[in-house]
């Protein structure tokens, strides 16, 4: 690799690419004068906030944009100019020489064909391989990408695979033609940390084995640190900075890059939440004992037990972080606490009162003691209510005060979550994701709850937005001193906010204790793996973690 930002012998180079979309008859630019290139065996990461044009630039390469688009500039692949290439020639390159891995493996694979059929199709469309041989090759590919029992999985439909397996199948399909360039568009965003680590590992190995050039698109700086050689930072359709990965992390030049980097919560990268605010001798806000939750099965079929005998307590003013891989039952516990699902055994005590089997009427008085912040700010606000009305709703339902007082309180809450009070009349779709989540928090705080349950409140948000929301959340918690059950799979976030941590695996509590102890010095293998799997935005440290993770993965 040379010291310059332009590799000596680029295999794919995008030069002054501009893409416009025709919307309601007008051409709106999405990508402006973007240039980057990638050399053989090199990994280039495209990073930037959502909507910055990462996907559009990468899909332009293979001409996969929607028909309402136009491209200008130049995309050179070896000696071939890709722009304006005719259909036949383009097809010969697609899949065979440049392959793509898409973000959402569930929707990117055709649900009505088995993954075997889809991979075989990819193989056969470039060379006339007999069916038996294509099948052999497919099995090899599946083995290569690490899908267990390839003989069986070759007959599986996408929906019968886990997210990680689907993504592997997608990758198997992409590498079936031993492409010279692999473009991976957010290949791990939808996956959980442990799976993400495996996929990244796989990509790295492929680069080594095939010598392909890789363009990876992501907004996760940890992923960048883990995998990339060179980084291209995009913002609002333009490239703002391009640098080798180490330089970028050590000495970011552009202000936006710096902002991007500082926004990432890093485990161990900050002081522990002020334990003093947590009143140690205070009362217990939440006590959960031997909680079991079973989802009923359909018509006679056996139900599914998602939570097995979990118990924990949250003292007044403290934050308990609940972590665990996807499907471990985190949300289920949260939902059981607020009564959205019924506990099948065990007890839940909020502020000293057992709420496990209360009827709605009896719950009434207790409602104001707890509230919830949801994961997806988009769907947790009624699109037909102004945000002011949304915030006011719990107060009105619980007859908190008269109209005027409610209105005043709404303005006050907006102010607290740092939204202009004049926005009370706006509707959710007129707000950005981060702003919507603030509204969600304001609504949850409306009745001054003693206990707040936050189910991955920031995981749907962009890194930079996530940071501001988390900061706000932390400030509010400090100031108002509510107790909180904070559910997340992002250990960085958990460490940032929580006093205590509980680790969940398959519906069972495997470890819990003060955050520092659990995260710095995990006692169980599972926790250790969980921690090692989360990439950190520092190439050097990440290399170390990768090593660690490889060890535990054995």
């Amino acid at each position, binding site marked *: 690799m040379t010291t310059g930002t332009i590799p000596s012998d680029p295999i794919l180079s995008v030069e002054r690419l501009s893409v416009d979309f025709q919307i309601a008859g007008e051409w709106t630019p999405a990508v402006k004068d973007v240039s980057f290139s990638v050399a053989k065996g090199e990994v280039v990461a495209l990073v930037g906030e959502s909507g910055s044009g990462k996907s559009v630039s990468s899909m332009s390469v293979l001409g996969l944009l929607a028909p309402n688009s136009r491209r200008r500039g130049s995309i050179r692949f070896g000696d071939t100019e890709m722009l304006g290439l005719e259909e036949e020639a383009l097809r010969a390159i697609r899949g065979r020489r440049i392959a793509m891995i898409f973000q959402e493996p569930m929707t990117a694979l*055709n649900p009505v064909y088995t993954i075997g059929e889809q991979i075989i199709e990819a193989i056969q*469309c470039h060379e006339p391989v007999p069916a038996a041989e294509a099948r052999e090759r497919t099995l090899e590919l599946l083995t290569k990408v690490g899908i267990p029992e390839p003989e069986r999985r070759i007959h599986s439909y996408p929906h019968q695979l886990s997210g990680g397996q689907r993504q592997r199948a997608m990758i198997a399909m992409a590498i079936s033609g031993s492409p010279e360039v692999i473009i991976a568009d957010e290949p791990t965003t939808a996956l959980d940390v442990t799976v993400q680590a495996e996929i990244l590992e796989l990509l790295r190995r492929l680069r080594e084995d095939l010598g392909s050039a890789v363009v990876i698109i992501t907004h996760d700086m940890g992923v960048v640190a883990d995998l990339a050689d060179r980084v291209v930072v995009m913002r609002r359709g333009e490239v703002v900075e391009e640098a080798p990965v180490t330089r970028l992390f050590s000495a970011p030049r552009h202000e936006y890059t710096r902002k991007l980097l500082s926004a990432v919560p890093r485990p161990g990268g900050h002081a522990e939440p002020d334990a003093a605010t947590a009143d140690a001798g205070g009362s217990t806000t939440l006590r959960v004992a031997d909680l079991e939750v079973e989802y009923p099965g359909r018509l006679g079929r056996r139900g599914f037990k998602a939570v097995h005998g979990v118990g924990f307590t949250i003292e007044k003013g403290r934050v308990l972080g609940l972590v665990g891989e996807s499907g471990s039952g985190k949300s289920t516990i949260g939902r059981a606490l607020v009564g959205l699902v019924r506990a099948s055994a065990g007890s839940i005590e909020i502020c000293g009162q057992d709420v496990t089997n209360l009827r709605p009427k009896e719950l009434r008085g207790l409602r104001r003691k707890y509230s919830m912040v949801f994961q997806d700010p988009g769907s947790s606000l009624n699109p037909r209510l102004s945000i002011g009305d949304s915030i006011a709703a719990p107060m009105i339902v619980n007859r908190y005060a008269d109209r005027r007082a409610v209105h005043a309180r709404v303005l006050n809450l907006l102010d607290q979550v740092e939204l202009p009070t004049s926005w009370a009349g706006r509707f959710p779709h007129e707000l950005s994701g981060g702003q919507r989540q603030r509204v969600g928090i304001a609504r949850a705080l409306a009745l001054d709850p003693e206990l707040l349950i936050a189910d991955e409140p920031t995981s749907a948000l962009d890194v930079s937005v996530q940071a501001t929301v988390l900061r706000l959340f932390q400030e509010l918690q400090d100031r108002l001193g509510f107790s909180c059950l904070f559910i997340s799979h992002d250990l960085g976030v958990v460490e940032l906010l929580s006093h205590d941590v509980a680790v969940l695996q398959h519906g069972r509590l495997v470890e819990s204790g003060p955050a520092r102890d659990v995260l710095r010095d995990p006692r169980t293998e599972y926790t250790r793996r969980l921690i090692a799997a989360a990439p950190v935005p520092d190439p050097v440290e990440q290399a170390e973690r990768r090593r660690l993770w490889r060890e535990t993965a054995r």
Partner: protein
Amino acid sequence: MRRFLVRRFTQAIVQLLLVGSIVFFLARLIPGDPARAALGDAATEEQVALTRAAMHLDEPFLGQFFGFWVRLFQGDLGTSLISGRAVMQDLPARIGNSLELVLLALAVSLVAGIALGRIAATRADKPSDHALVAGSIFGISLPVFVVGTLLLLVFAVLIPILPPRRFASPLDDPIAHLQILVLPVVTLAAASCAVVTRMTRAAMLETLNADYVRTARAKGLVEKRVIKRHALRTAMLPVVSMTTVELTTLIGSTVLVETIFGWPGMSSLLMNAVGQRDYPVIQAVVLAAATIVILVNLVGDLVIRAIDPRAEDN
């Protein structure tokens, strides 16, 4: 799968029981007297009253009701009050004739509709798409009886290329049979073809935008194959489930078509029976029609399960 079948069959049977009971009471609620129908215009009221009694229509309602079910379970659909013929003597052939029309019309509209829908979807917003969309909306807007009447006038009376000949059974004279089939089938198919076209177009526009179609293109597949294997195949799922609904509509429309073309299907049997308050026949025909609808829905569900692997698991 077994469990699914068992559940669907029980559901179907319960549905039939309900339909049967409803028909039983509905038929008897229609004012007018089968005895009058049996005796004709000139009979005196006294004669009618006597015949009523002879038809056991004066017996208690509930007794008749249970008798109906008991006989039905013994496989006896009853005997026409008016003509004295066993219902089973006529029903199968008549249903056969109706089904022939309906199924042919369905086949025609599926084949043509899917082809047209595919063309429209792949040329979205081009003139040929606009023409097809306009055409299909036009097809949906045309009342069946207007289409039938005009077709009959034009092709049978004015330019007699396809005269509505005497009904010939397909076994005796297949060619003549096909000839008389054309007009009623076209009439029936016109509207549902338009529906299928629209459906296919809408579903395909959706699948054409799906990520997996982009994946297929990224693989380097020929566009034709992308469309056929990836966009069209998945677009068939909603089309199939709509087909079952469309079939119900078709069965309804045959009433009009059979009237217009004098097709010896079950509608004329039913219309006659309704006109004569011939309760056993009404009950049998409606039950048969409902059975068909229920079976079709069942088959539709099975087909969907067969072509949509996802359906298996929920």
